[in-house]
């Protein structure tokens, strides 16, 4: 992985999350706090890992970054500019997202990979150019060109998730948000995705935010990270040293696997 962050000052970071709160609207009752005062910064080209037990608010945090939900407090900056100051479509084009469960659209793999470029009228009206673009993205995720014409609903879980990655990459994002992209895959397919991400991180200046509940995976993938429990940042710093001497009791509990599977409200 790339070297440790040389500059984590908020001014020069690609992505800055500042004091973000999120409270889910309560159904008649009081609203329920999901995220409280989450702050971190990711410099360009780095892989930032958000680690936490399930239900700790990791997915919610990612969704506030590309405004699939609106934070109830705090703000997110992309290249120093508050995301609320950017047109939503621009923000989402620049900040790609891969979800835990691959959600492919109906149609072929080509239809999926070309979805983003088609929205913007690129690459022109030429079907050949479109195919070339899609094949190029597929090769980045290790899939052969003949995948273009496969129906999207006939892929294995691992293939589908790789197509989702290619679909996100086709938008030429600057930041890629990955929401437990390997959680629904078997170990072999998961390792394949991990390797792809590591290669992308090494070869491009794409900035990653990688969410996982798996400590070992976090150590393999990230260069910096934080531990999120109950919507709060417990610790953050460079990986893999971050958890070598846990400061907090909660961190110890998490490391011992005692927060792992259970849902934290």
């Amino acid at each position, binding site marked *: 992985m790339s070297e440790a962050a040389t500059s984590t000052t908020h001014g020069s970071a690609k992505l800055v999350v500042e004091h973000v709160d999120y409270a889910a609207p309560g159904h008649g009752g009081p609203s329920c706090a999901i995220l409280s005062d989450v702050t971190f910064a990711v410099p360009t080209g780095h892989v930032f890992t958000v680690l936490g037990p399930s239900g700790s608010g990791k997915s919610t945090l990612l969704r506030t970054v590309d405004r*699939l939900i609106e934070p109830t407090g705090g703000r997110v900056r992309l290249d120093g500019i508050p995301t609320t100051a950017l047109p939503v479509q621009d923000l*989402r084009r620049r900040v*790609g997202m891969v979800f835990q469960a691959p959600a492919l*659209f109906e149609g072929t793999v080509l239809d999926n990979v070309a979805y983003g470029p088609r929205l913007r009228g690129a690459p022109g009206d030429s079907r050949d150019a479109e195919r070339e673009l899609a094949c190029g993205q597929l090769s980045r995720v290790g899939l052969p060109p003949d995948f273009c014409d496969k129906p999207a609903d006939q892929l294995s879980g691992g293939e589908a998730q790789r197509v989702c990655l290619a679909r996100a990459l086709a*938008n030429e994002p600057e930041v890629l948000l990955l929401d437990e992209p390997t959680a629904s895959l078997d170990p072999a397919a998961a390792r394949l995705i991990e390797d792809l991400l590591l290669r992308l991180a090494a070869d491009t200046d794409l900035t990653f935010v990688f969410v996982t509940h798996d400590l070992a995976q976090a150590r393999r993938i990230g260069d910096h990270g934080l531990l999120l429990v109950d919507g709060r940042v417990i610790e953050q710093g460079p990986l893999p040293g971050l958890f070598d001497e846990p400061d907090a009791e909660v961190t110890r509990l998490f490391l011992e696997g005692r927060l792992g599977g259970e849902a934290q409200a």
Partner: protein
Amino acid sequence: MTAAQHFGYVDVAAALALLAIALGLSYRERLGLEKDLLIASLRAFVQLMAIGYVIDLIFGAERFVWVVLMVVAMVVFATATSARRVRTLPGSWWIMAVAIGLATALTLGLMLALGIIDPQARYVIPIAGMVVGNSMTVASVTVLRLLEDARDQRPRIEAALALGATPRQAADNVIRGSVRLAMVPIIDSTKTMGIVFLPGAMTGMILAGADPLEAVKLQVVIMYMLTAATALSATAAALLAPRRLFTPQQQLRRLG
């Protein structure tokens, strides 16, 4: 032309025997529908009697403004019924009012403008009833389906949004699916018309002693009109509702 058979209240009361069959079945099979059936039948009787008197009054008055008011009242009632069905959707009242109102105004207006029907209460009101009723059903089904699909297809819709799609683009599949589904009954009944399905207006005219060929011609006109009205209503509902599925920041709402 043969004279129509005269129906007296005694005949109507005798038809209660049919209701008794339904009640008996419900009781025997412990469906627990007796109360609902009784109330519904009673309501239908009272509502129909009332509307009979109103129509009789309007026929007598021969003022077109009364006809228009009657049609508006139908649209309002249909709107309230449809909007109640999808009350989890913000602004459902306006969506239904526009969908049903637009479908009714355009089709009835065109029929009147082209001189296909005479601007008389005895033609406009029954035909408006069919148009409003069908538009209402179709608008309800469209929006219900849209809400259900938006829930089921949430991951796909959000994946599309995350790629920079507008709400309209992200919901495109869901929109088309809901219109298609809502149009199925009208298309199927149009296809099988005369074979499986002897439509109400034609049946009514024949019962009332009209020439069957006259009845058929009117039915064909009505059929085309209902097809247009339902297509308009479903499309309008499906185009208006998605805005309300999303927040102004283009996020998919969580509805009920």
